[in-house]
């Protein structure tokens, strides 16, 4: 079978329900089997399911003669000349098959000769041209995507994170990227959470991926120059305008203009941007002519815009237009499970090697630090630690490599919250923690009597001791709050 | 449905008529299992009615109501006030005439005489029918039947035998039993004629003297038949032939005295006894009535009947003796033609 991400869709037209059932079972995982028990449902199914091959029982029960089946072949071939049509018969009579083939059937199968491999190879024979076509399409798309990625992701900032929150955001961004090319997106989140990275993620997956991605940090531009920087200016429009200059809107034509720190612009500028979002038109500074450009706006801010509206520094109508598709990226401390992946990425190592490269307690500290500067701070910290490691000639990143503020940092606010703690742990650690918490509870119930606790846990005192010690040697950081265990086993 | 009996889209209706004076007049309709609408469903209608005229009116009404269906009527034979041949012939003729008027001649309409628990319609005859010995639907939870399965293993039917089942508080006849009975009766007359034909020819043929025209005198044939009747494994050929004869053939009534070939009560009893022993149906009276009324077979039947009557004519003078020369090949031919014409 040719490799293809989408399973070929086989439409089975037969009034014998059992035939559908048997085929679905036999070819599960290989093909998507779609059922039609009469001809009335064929057309909608072909359209809806993008059918790749049709299997037609030559004789349906209501047929009075063989000609009804032949008519169906002719009709199907007329309507769907490019879809292979295979005839299925209950008898293997040569004359039946020959007549069916003469009337346009591409091939035949005899139900009495059912052999999964044989049938599959017959399907494959007729699906081969389709697969080749699909493979070509796939390669074309891949090529285009690669080009788009190179084009748009010249920065090495992938949108990291596998937490449920980030996966949901990725899913939403992918959706908006492909669904509506003109939807304005507002990305909110604390400084350093990766708002631009998210915007680039959206760009790379969208229909504008072949077009430019232009990022502008509005807080870094002098307020008086924001308009000309964005819209461009004509020679002489203002004192320093010595020549015509195109703005970022022109640069982003056909693509995405990412306006970071949108909360920092003046009310006047907000009106002009609002006009663009509504009508897709603007005026170059110094010109009286309206210009229409196809640019998608993705804005971002770390400010509370609702509060800004209340304070009168942000227009409510502009805000409404901006947040057509709002995306909020949570701070890193709210999604600590993403941290190991990020550390590995910034260290340029494989995540599976993380435990070898970072000492456990250090990793624990990194996972549970506050990270008020979010991903950006984490990235800087790892770069710092990597340098320290080199200087100190260490094999692994350990506590000595950590910046002082992390070493001395208080316990994270949610440390006692098992949910939160749990999320950041690897699978084996999670199991260990669950087990240890159970031991902790049992010891508490048994007033720290180890023998009794062991019995309650269906083991003996030695077995329980061995287990606890083993856990401690592997995951010492899990014991921080397990006071009964620590007391009972002198940890 | 895999029951080995022929199926057609046409609805089949069985009407079973009893004349029990002890019971009140009533009629009930029982559907046969199936997924079709009630109208299209096969049916069994049970009637108890003592007045023959009322029965006839009812049956004509039912025949009219089910004129698009195939209808088999089963009339109780052994009651003291049983249905006469006239009754059956009259009923059959009227219905067949109506069918012809309405161009429904492909529809089946047949009357059968049943009784005594020895006909196929009774379950006890071959363990395939639908009625118990007193005429109710076979539905006996205590009935212990040893049957052989398809692999020859003998097994006990623990659950008893029920040819009916209850669906949503409604009695339904199991399709398999209905179909078996229908299939049997759809060819019953033909089968009886074939059996009589082959039994008769096999008995009468003389291989040593059968080259060319094997003519036998009627008295010799009668002697052979009487001899056969004495044998332990007798098939009662003489009585069976008499039960087939068209007694009231107006054309011949003047020529031959009825009492020479009319089936007598003791002969009928003998035949019925034989039927019970052999579990075969031998009595041809209902068949004869049907053949008399049948548009397709009537003429062939009359020809055969007239020829067979010659066997029972006691020769009194030379002229009659001459008339009573019987050719086996002629009997054979007449039987074959009649069988071919029976639907």
């Amino acid at each position: 079978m040719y490799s293809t991400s989408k399973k070929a869709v086989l439409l089975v037209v037969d009034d014998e329900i059992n035939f559908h059932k048997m085929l679905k079972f036999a070819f599960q995982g290989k093909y998507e089997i779609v059922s039609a028990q009469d001809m009335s449902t064929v057309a909608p199914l072909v359209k809806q399911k993008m059918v790749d091959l049709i299997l037609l029982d030559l004789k349906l029960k209501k047929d009075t003669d063989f000609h009804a089946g032949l008519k169906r072949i002719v009709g199907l071939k007329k309507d769907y000349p490019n879809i292979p049509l295979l005839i299925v018969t209950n008898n293997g009579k040569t004359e039946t098959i020959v007549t069916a083939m003469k009337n346009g059937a591409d091939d035949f199968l005899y139900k009495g000769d059912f052999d999964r491999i044989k049938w599959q190879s017959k399907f494959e024979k007729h699906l081969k041209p389709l697969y080749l076509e699909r493979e070509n399409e796939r390669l074309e798309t891949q090529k285009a995507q690669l080009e788009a990625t190179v084009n748009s992701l010249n920065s090495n900032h992938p949108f990291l994170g596998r937490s449920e929150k980030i996966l949901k955001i990725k899913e939403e961004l992918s959706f908006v990227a492909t669904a509506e090319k003109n939807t304005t997106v507002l990305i909110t989140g604390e400084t350093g959470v990766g708002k631009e990275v998210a915007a680039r993620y959206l760009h790379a997956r969208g229909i504008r991926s072949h077009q430019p991605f232009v990022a502008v940090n509005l807080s870094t531009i002098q307020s008086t120059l924001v308009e000309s920087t964005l819209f461009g200016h004509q020679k002489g429009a203002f004192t320093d305008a010595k020549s015509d200059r195109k703005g970022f809107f022109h640069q982003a034509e056909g693509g995405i203009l990412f306006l970071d720190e949108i909360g920092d612009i003046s009310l006047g500028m907000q009106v002009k941007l609002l006009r663009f979002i509504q009508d897709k038109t603007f005026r170059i500074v110094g010109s009286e002519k309206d210009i229409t450009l196809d640019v998608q706006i993705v804005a971002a801010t770390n400010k509370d815009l609702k509060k800004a509206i209340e304070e009168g520094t942000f227009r409510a109508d502009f805000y409404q237009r901006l947040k057509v598709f709002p995306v909020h990226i949570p701070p890193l401390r709210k999604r600590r499970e993403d941290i190991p992946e990020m550390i590995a990425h910034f260290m340029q190592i494989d995540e599976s090697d993380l435990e070898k490269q970072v000492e456990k307690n250090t990793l624990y500290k990194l996972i549970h630090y506050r990270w008020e500067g979010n991903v950006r701070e984490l990235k800087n910290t790892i770069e710092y630690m990597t340098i320290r490691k080199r200087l100190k000639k260490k094999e692994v990143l350990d506590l000595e490599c950590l910046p002082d503020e992390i070493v001395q940092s208080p316990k994270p606010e949610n440390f006692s919250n098992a949910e939160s703690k749990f999320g950041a742990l690897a699978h084996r650690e999670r199991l260990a923690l669950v087990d240890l918490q159970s031991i902790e509870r049992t010891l508490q119930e048994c007033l720290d009597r180890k023998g009794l606790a062991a019995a309650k846990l269906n083991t003996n005192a030695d077995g329980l001791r061995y287990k606890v010690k083993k856990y401690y040697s592997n995951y010492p950081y899990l014991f921080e709050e397990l006071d009964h265990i620590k007391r009972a086993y002198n940890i | 449905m895999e029951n080995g009996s022929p199926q057609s889209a046409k609805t089949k209706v069985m009407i079973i008529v009893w004349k029990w004076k002890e019971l009140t007049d009533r009629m009930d309709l029982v559907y046969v299992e199936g997924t079709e609408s009630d109208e299209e469903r096969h049916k069994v209608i049970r009637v108890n009615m003592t007045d023959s005229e009322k029965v006839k009116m009812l049956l004509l009404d039912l025949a009219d109501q089910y004129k698009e269906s195939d209808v088999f009527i089963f009339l109780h034979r052994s009651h003291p006030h049983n249905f006469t041949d006239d009754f059956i012939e009259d009923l059959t003729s009227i219905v067949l005439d109506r069918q012809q008027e309405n161009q429904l001649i492909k529809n089946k309409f047949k009357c059968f005489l049943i009784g005594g628990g020895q006909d196929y319609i009774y379950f006890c005859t071959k363990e395939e029918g639908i009625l118990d010995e007193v005429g109710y639907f076979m539905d006996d939870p205590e009935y212990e039947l040893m049957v052989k399965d398809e692999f020859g293993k003998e097994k006990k039917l623990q659950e008893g035998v029920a040819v009916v089942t209850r669906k949503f508080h409604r009695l339904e006849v199991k399709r398999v039993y209905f179909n078996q009975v229908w299939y049997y009766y759809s060819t019953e007359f033909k089968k009886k004629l074939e059996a009589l034909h082959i039994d008769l020819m096999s008995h009468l043929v003389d291989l040593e003297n059968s080259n060319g025209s094997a003519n036998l005198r009627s008295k010799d044939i009668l002697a052979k038949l009487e001899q056969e009747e004495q044998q332990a494994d007798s098939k009662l050929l003489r009585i069976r032939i008499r039960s087939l004869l068209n007694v009231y053939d107006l054309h011949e009534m003047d020529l031959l005295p009825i009492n020479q070939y009319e089936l007598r009560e003791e002969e009928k009893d003998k035949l019925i006894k034989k039927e019970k022993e052999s579990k075969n149906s031998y009595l041809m009276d209902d068949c004869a009535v049907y053949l008399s009324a049948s548009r397709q077979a009537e003429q062939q039947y009359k020809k055969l009947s007239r020829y067979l009557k010659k066997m029972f004519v006691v020769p009194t003078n030379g002229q009659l003796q001459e008339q009573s020369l019987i050719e086996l090949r002629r009997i054979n031919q007449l039987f074959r033609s009649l069988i071919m014409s029976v639907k």
Partner: protein
Amino acid sequence: MEKDIIYFFGNNEVMIKKLSAYFNKRNYTLKKYDLNQLDSVHYLLLIEPYSIQGNYFDIHRIFRNYFEKESSRHSKLKLLVAGFDTGCDCRNYLNLLDMPSNIDAFLLRAGVIREPWKIRPSNGDLIAQLDKFFMGHHRVSLFQRLNYLQFGITNIKDAIEGNIEGQNHETAWLNAADILRTEMDSFTNRWRNYSIYFECCPFHQPMKEVQKLMGHLRSYIFEQSDQSVFERYDCPRVVADIRKELVKMQEYVQY
């Protein structure tokens, strides 16, 4: 092969007695032909009609089809038919109402199985019944029933062998159980309704074999639906063998 033995097949006891006496008188022995052996013989006399449950059938065509297909073993066979069709003038037909004046000459003149002789039908044809057995009343053929047994059994086999992703004997059995039980019942019902006709067929013996195979399949489907039973009986092989035998037999059921 003795030339003075005439084998017969029929169930009209009266005629068997008469024919036996007739042939004895002419120095021939009439001997019953054993359908389980199907020996190569010189003369096989079919006594028609053959009665099955009160119905009368011609059986010569099914015998002729069979011997024609198997002619290498029966090349010298003269298939004779005795009956009451006085209009039949075929040289292999023994007209019981017009016996030949010289039986030796009749036997000599009769054609061997491959020669062109034809007996006209005079009773119901057994082939019509057997055709119904294979093709069904609603044209739902016996093979159609077998097809669904094969689908179910093949899926179970593939699941056991790990050819169907994530499936095993249990799941495959659950998926196919209803279909297998329904189809097996239909198949068996049809078999039971028609098996009476096999008794007078020359392929009576292989039919018994098929019946045995059906018993194996039924054991798995209705009694012990375990993988071990499936494997012990080699159910896929059983289905294939049943089909092979039935296909062969259907070849004899031709008009």
